């Protein structure tokens, strides 16, 4: 018989999942990025609903494995990962704390509506190294699907920009 009282709550599990790093940007967690949409118990099975960032992102499979392993270590025997496409993942779900972590790591966080100077297609992006706004896009794509390549005209450093999506 299952002891219901022994089951950790969804809120508690979400806190555990904050320890699961994104495989390609390890300073932020899969919860920070908004990849984990929900956790819920279905009997004695824990269902974790995740959404892909980009449909072909190779990190997606690794993320599912890491979530399962983390939960197993916490003593949850039965885990099911459910993929959900809608609503489609958006960088608007990346919280303020995670944006600061990205910046400290050298990745310019996505420019959203509220923060946008210029227009959204051609945003003004602050250099994560020196804080200058004199930056320019080098290429619309970068080292991972979620990033574009930029450079700073003041400190002359190249940097990754987490594209608004």
């Amino acid at each position: 018989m299952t002891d219901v009282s022994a089951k950790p709550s969804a809120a508690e599990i979400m806190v555990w999942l904050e320890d699961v790093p994104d495989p390609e940007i390890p300073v932020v967690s899969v919860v920070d990025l908004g990849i984990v949409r929900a956790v819920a118990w279905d009997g004695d099975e824990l269902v974790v609903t995740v959404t892909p960032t980009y449909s072909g992102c190779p990190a997606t499979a690794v993320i599912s494995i890491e979530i399962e392993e983390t939960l197993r270590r916490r003593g949850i025997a039965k885990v099911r990962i459910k993929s959900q496409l809608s609503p489609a993942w958006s960088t608007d779900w990346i919280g303020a704390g995670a944006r600061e972590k990205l910046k400290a790591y050298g990745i310019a966080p996505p420019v959203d509506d509220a923060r946008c100077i210029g227009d959204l297609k051609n945003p003004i992006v602050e250099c994560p190294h020196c804080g200058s706004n004199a930056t320019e896009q080098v290429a619309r794509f970068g080292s991972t699907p979620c990033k574009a390549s930029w450079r700073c005209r003041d400190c002359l450093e190249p940097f990754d920009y987490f594209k608004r999506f």
Partner: protein
Amino acid sequence: MKAAAKIDMALFELALRMGDNDIVLAQRISAWCGHAPILEEDIALANVALDLIGQTKLWLDLAGEIEGAGRSADDLAFLRDARAYKNALLVERPNGDFAYTLMRQFLFDAWHLPMLRALKSSSEQRVADIAEKAEKEARYHLERTEDLIIRLGDGTQESHSRMQAALDDLYPFAGEFVAPDAIDDELASRKIAPALSEIGALYFDYLETALAEATLKAPVDAPVRKGGRKGLHSEELGYLLAEMQFLQRAYPGAKW
């Protein structure tokens, strides 16, 4: 004994057509990896290919689910012959030079975006969900190709003449995306997919504006080259599939 469930053939065809366009184009542009004229474009082409492969998996998983015969997205991608592929002819055109690859991509992206946008309101929820995801990626793809065809079309004499030659050759293939057949008519009447005439109007209006800005001229009265969406392909698709499917054909069920 349970009677075999009837397969929704129109929906199955839609999923194949959408998925096959994605995978054939992804395979084509993947061949540029390590060969593109500049590093940034090399990375861009590989990233676009990755998005399209991701989208392929969503569409072909759906096709397999509708068919109900236990075929996975991998089975459909690697174990179907050319006649069973339902991509439009444009995407199987060989890579040619960079101008040709770019023009092919632009003509695809310019159709892909309004098509996915319309599919977001499909009466079939699984189609709407995939379209919602893919549309965001397609929008970003078109922003890049639009920017590049304008810069290169309205660029040097050399870049202009190469872009124009690519357009002359590829433009006749564009019409196939929006030339409806009985399957499209059924999908439209069931509100699963938009009427292709509506997408066609948006597509050609957009092309006219963008190509004018790029100082490029679309051929007038070019007959539409089609057949791929019915499984009637050019010779080139066979070679593409031979390369793409080699591993699964030679070593059935191989995994890593």
